[in-house]
Structure formats: C-alpha cells, structure tokens
C-alpha cells in the first residue's frame, strides 16, 4: 500500500478522452498520484519541475512527440532512468526500434486493455499492491 500511495505516474496524450481513460485505469489499479500533460513539451516541463516515477506517453503528439520526449527525458540527469512506457499504433516496427535504442522500458499498442496496461507497468515495477 505504501508503494501505491507514493508512486507517481505522468500520463502524456494529446487526446483528452485517452488521458481520461488511462487515468481511470490507473486509479482502478490503486495508483493515486497521477499527473497529466497534453503534449511532450508540457510533459518535459512537468518532469523537470516535479518528476514522476514513471511516464506513460503516447507517440503521436504535437510539439514534442513520444520519441522526442523520451530522448529529452533520457538526456536530463534526474530523469535519466525514469521508467517510460510508449503507446503506439499498430505495426510500427521502426518506431519501436528507435524507442528501444533510446531506452524505452516497455510499450503498448493502442487500443489496449486495462489488464495489458497493468501488466506493462508491473513488468517494470513489480506487482502493484
């Protein structure tokens, strides 16, 4: 319980409805601290001001896309190792290869289910309880 009380996740997506759905899913898992950003630029600012313990980010976004955000987060000292889950469209192999090269921790193909999201998070931080 102590872990879930302090574990903070930053959700980054330019689609409002997606942000709402992901936030709802995270809350269903017991995650209480959730920050949201509507593009990569806003997310980067948030990570520099009040870093989260994990970033869940869409790829296709204005200003900074998911890959550019990942690159920026990896090159900023305090967030260099922050777990990063990338949300992508179907069959984008090149994108995944680039993400892996930049140090992505996990990825999910849209549309995904709540259990799949939970599994992706747990693969990085262990069982949520």
């Amino acid at each position: 319980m102590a872990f879930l009380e302090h574990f903070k996740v930053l959700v980054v997506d330019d689609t409002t409805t997606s942000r709402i759905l992901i936030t709802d899913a995270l809350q269903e898992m017991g995650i209480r601290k959730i920050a949201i950003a509507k593009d990569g630029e806003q997310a980067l600012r948030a990570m520099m001001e009040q870093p989260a313990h994990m970033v869940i980010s869409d790829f296709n976004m204005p200003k900074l896309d998911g890959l550019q955000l990942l690159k920026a987060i990896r090159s900023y000292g305090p967030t260099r190792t922050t777990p990063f889950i990338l949300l992508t469209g179907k069959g984008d192999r090149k994108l995944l290869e680039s993400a892996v090269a930049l140090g992505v921790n996990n990825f999910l193909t849209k549309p995904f289910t709540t259990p799949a999201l939970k599994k992706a998070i747990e693969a990085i931080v262990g069982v949520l309880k």
Partner: protein
Amino acid sequence: MTLVAKSHRVTVMRGEYHVVHEGDVVLTTILGSCVAACIRDPYAQAGGMNHFLLPGNNVRQSLDAQSYGVHLMELLVNGLLQRGAHRHRLEAKLFGGARTIEGLSDIGAMNAEFAETFLRNEGISIVGGDLGGDRGRRVEYWPLTGRARQVMLSGDKGFVAPVSPRQPPVAQSGGSVEFF
C-alpha cells in the same frame, strides 16, 4: 489507412477509417448500431470518416471498450492533422447508433453517446448528422465540401423500438436527406 487522391467512391467498413486530402471523393458506409464520424477541416481541405462499434454491451462501464473507440477516433483525427488540419478548426457530423435489435441493451445509443462525448472532450464541434432511430442508414460524405447525405434503410424486420432516444429527421421509408 488509405489515402485517396483520385476521384472515386470509397466504402468505409467497420473498424476502418479513411482520410481524403484531394480529389472528388465520396466516402460511403452502411450503419446499423455502429457510428460513423465524418470530420473535416474546411480550410485545410482534409476530411475523413471512420466507422466503429464499441465491443461489448456495457460500454459505459468498460474502459476497454471505450479505448477501442478512442483509438479509431484518434486515427482519424491524427490522419487529418498530418494533412495540415488544425484541431480547433475540425468539424464533425455523426451518423448511426440505431437501435436495430429488439430486446438487447441499446448498443446504438451507447455508441452515439460515446462519439458525442469524445468530440465534446476534444473540443470538436458537431455541425450536423443524425443519430438514433430504429433503422439502418446508408451514409455518403464528401469530405472536402462537408456535404453529407443519408438514406434510411427500410425496416425489413418490421421492428419499431418502443422508445427511441432520438427521432431521425426523415419519417418516410427509404427517404434521403442531405446534411450540409
């Protein structure tokens, strides 16, 4: 996604979306309880249509069902943005969401409600369309002009829903109406 540059008719099947950026193209689909969102940016000369049916019959409580719908809406919107459209200029017409099967929960209404909520959340204005009723529709959409036309399909099952959440603007069987 299919990008269309020539002048012709494209059928959008369930689970698909098409974006058009030039040419005299008409997008067409047949809808029962499914919903088609027709979205365009009148200044960028880009428009498109998707066609979705949320899985399951308890969409309101299912994040996963909504996730599927959001994905198809996102694909269409992102396809438009990639062709020079601006989010704040997008305008939508929604069609479908009929209650075509008696006795089951009103899946059509749930699909319609989802689409309306999505567009409201994203700040995309709804400028026309027709949702609900108890009959299927054939919809044609000219994405570059925004013109839309629907033909109500005659009720072959003879089913009339006891309570229809929204009445279609055309009462006559097999009639067609244009939505500008």
